[in-house]
């Protein structure tokens, strides 16, 4: 009892003494992150161009952050809550609707994208996620629906409810798997470090895919660097540099924004996403390359 009183008194003294002019903690923590990357888009694009690979850019950011600093449980970024991506349904949210892409594509992927957009305009389209496959990374950044960002000192979990997509970002100092053990994965392998409250990620070992429905293809040589940070109480932003020597003439910089979903009563909850739950939602690819629902199998039970 006496010890409790003394401890409380000491803590109270500390709090009282610090209250008048204690420096605010959040800005101090975020200062490091704001210095890590330039503020305006042109400079961020230029930052990507200064590096020949994603690994080089990642190493440069790490050097700039003096190797980064492990998170401490008594100073954790608060990324709790539910989030949703905002912006246009392109990988680059700032891409105008009448522009093919903001990426500088090599001739072959450019021709493929033009052809696919023409077919799409005619109603001929098939999305690989129609068969319940995962969007994969980096497309993960652009898909809709709810998200959670779970920050722990050694690992950050970036979750999207679509087909229960979970990216694991290891910030415990481990490296990527050795080249002998590396193979293409839906979400690749992500390692990272913290600079203040900014999370810097390098991802490699991805499977080939598309950035979004009406976006370019990418190869399994793709690698990406991301810098994630909370910019205000309801906004988390990610600066993303994509390097893919097979499809991109130069690194593609985009910024993704995720807004917190209001949930004051806690009623919005993420459940398990079972993509194959309703056989009448099964979509098949037709011979001409478009999408068609499978034969419907409605029963009396479906009328309930």
């Amino acid at each position, binding site marked *: 009892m006496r010890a409790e009183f003394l401890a409380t008194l000491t*803590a109270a003294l500390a709090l009282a003494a610090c209250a008048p002019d*204690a420096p605010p903690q959040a800005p101090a923590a975020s200062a490091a992150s704001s210095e890590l990357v330039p503020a305006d888009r042109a400079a961020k694009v230029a930052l990507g161009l200064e590096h020949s690979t994603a690994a080089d850019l990642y190493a440069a950011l790490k050097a700039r952050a003096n190797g980064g600093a492990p998170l401490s449980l008594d100073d954790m970024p608060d990324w*709790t809550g539910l989030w949703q991506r905002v912006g246009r349904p392109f990988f680059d949210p700032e891409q105008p609707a009448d522009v093919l892409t903001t990426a500088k594509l090599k001739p072959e992927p450019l021709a493929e994208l033009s052809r696919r957009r023409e077919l799409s305009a005619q109603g001929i389209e098939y999305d690989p996620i129609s068969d319940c496959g995962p969007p994969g990374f980096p497309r993960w950044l652009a898909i809709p629906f709810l998200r959670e960002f779970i920050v722990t000192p050694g690992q950050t979990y970036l979750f999207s409810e679509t087909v229960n997509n979970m990216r694991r970002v290891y910030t415990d100092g481990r490296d990527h798997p050795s080249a002998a053990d590396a193979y293409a994965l*839906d979400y690749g392998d992500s390692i990272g470090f913290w600079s203040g409250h900014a999370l810097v990620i390098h991802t490699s070992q991805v499977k080939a895919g598309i950035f979004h429905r009406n976006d370019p293809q990418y190869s399994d040589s793709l690698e990406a660097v991301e810098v994630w940070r909370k910019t205000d109480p309801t906004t988390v932003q990610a600066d993303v540099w994509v390097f893919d020597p097979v499809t991109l003439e130069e690194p593609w910089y985009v910024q993704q924004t995720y807004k917190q979903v209001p949930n004051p009563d806690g009623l919005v909850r993420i459940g398990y996403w079972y993509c194959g739950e309703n056989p009448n939602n099964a979509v098949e690819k037709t011979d001409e390359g478009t999408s068609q629902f499978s034969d419907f199998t409605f029963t009396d039970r479906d009328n309930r």
Partner: protein
Amino acid sequence: MFANVRCRKLCALLSRVGVAALGLLTAAASFAAIELPTEKAALIALGEQHRTAWDLYKDFSTQAKGGQRLNPARLPDWTGVYSRSGILFNWDQDQGRNRMPTAKLTPEYERRLVTKLDNIAKGIEFDNLSNCAPPGHPRWMTEPFLRDFVVTPDQTYLINEMVNDIRRIYTDGREHTPEADRYPLWNGDSIGFWDGGKLVIHTNSLRSGQYQRTQPEYSEQVETVEIWEKIDDKTLLAHVWVYDPPSLAQPWYSKHTYLKLSNEDKSLRIRYWDCGENQNNTVIQTENGSSQFRDFTFTDKDN
């Protein structure tokens, strides 16, 4: 300016002393109020003393005076990669190699289990997981493969890599979804509280299912109470009481153990589980209720 610097140093020192002292007190206060009996018979009896899972949960909540919010700076360390230990298809490890489980089933569900086991003995079996459906809770407890457990102050994530199966336990004081908004969910709706290092969970709003392939079925009235605790550096233990009036004549108590895997070089990493990735793994239910692979479509690429 100098005074400010000196004050800040003093503040920092006092803060550290104060926080350390409070930390010691928090540690002292983190001793759990809930003391579970050690004998299985007493744990079974504890379940039987309560008419519903909710009654048992409320009793635990009363013992723990509502529990405590986790101190963000002193979270229980459940990090690492785990796997369930024990006999794969047993819900209760004490079943051993016996044909029938330890549950006290109602006659209807006992009859159904006997029929199922008879069919399995004849090679007739179909598991819903074959079409990539999630196991659902409570079966989630018994699945193999890798798991990780992420503890945050207001929410704990219980993750099984198989079909990316994540249970969310809300420990921020929220209640279950109001009755008017409830419907059966694969992993139900789970709320909980912390009592020292123990996580106490109540789950409702579940779908019907089976505890495991050779185990009984349960109805969508099933509800559970779990108490999770790390009992040593590499062992997480979950006490589970299942209540399901249509299938169980009495609550079914069992204990589940998850062991931390050795991962010194950190090469063991959980990846996305795309159940439909290999079309030649697709299993369909035959007319007699058994399982059969679809016609294989191997190509030269598969070689």
